[in-house]
């Protein structure tokens, strides 16, 4: 029956349920955030690319990494509470100062069975 069990991997979804499982306990909101800045080199290249438009690859990767980091931190926080899944996850981004932005991920920590 438990042949599909993969260790203690945290299940993260942005729907309000975990498929195939029942929520047995709520632990409230959990969040993970990270503030990132890119070094001057990438910033300069982005400044040049800004002239002609198009995608800024340097920033795309920067923000992708940051978002993964934010999710990991959110998972850690949920893990400390004893949860094994995070549902209803949402993202947010905001610019803090020049060259730095905050990436936020938040959701509801739950225990599923």
């Amino acid at each position, binding site marked *: 029956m438990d042949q599909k069990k993969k260790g203690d991997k945290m299940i993260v*979804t942005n729907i309000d349920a975990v498929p195939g499982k029942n929520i047995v306990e709520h632990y409230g909101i959990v969040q993970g955030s990270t503030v990132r800045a890119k070094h001057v080199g990438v910033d300069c290249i982005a400044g040049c690319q800004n*002239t002609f438009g198009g995608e800024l690859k340097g920033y795309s990767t920067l923000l992708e990494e940051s978002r993964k980091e934010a999710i990991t931190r959110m998972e850690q926080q949920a893990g400390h509470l004893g949860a094994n899944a995070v549902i209803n996850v*949402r993202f947010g981004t905001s610019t803090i100062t020049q060259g730095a932005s905050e990436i936020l991920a938040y959701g509801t920590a739950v225990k599923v069975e």
Partner: protein
Amino acid sequence: MDLIIFLVFVGGAYLIGQHIEKSHYKEIEKKESACLHIPSVTSKKIVNLDEVLDAKLVFGNVVISGDYFKMIVASLLNFFGGRVTPYEKLLDRARREAILRMKQDASSMDADMIINTRFEMSKLDSMARGGGGTGMFEIIAYGTAVKLAKK
């Protein structure tokens, strides 16, 4: 003399910007037809959750910027009002690209569908020290990739 430099700059930005846009649209269309087997929907009630084997949060992001030509056209249009087509196209490209990246993320787990897809967008302009107000945006698309039980 200043005017010539300005015109060369704007003209160059226009030509290169157009070229980038066209090749990007071609690439998007090619990738979109390759990704048709993973539909992404905004609804979450479309699948019966009992039939789902595996679920995972997937996302794709794109940082995109306008060019000087777009900026000038936009500031002119700002005066008269109406549709700002250059930026409409820019954001359309970025959103479609973000969806494609999300689908790529989903295909790594062999997903059948992405449900509850959401978009998020933020302006990052002050992040670039050299950027001259051409507008820089991050677009992210995220959703839950699900793997369905085969019938």
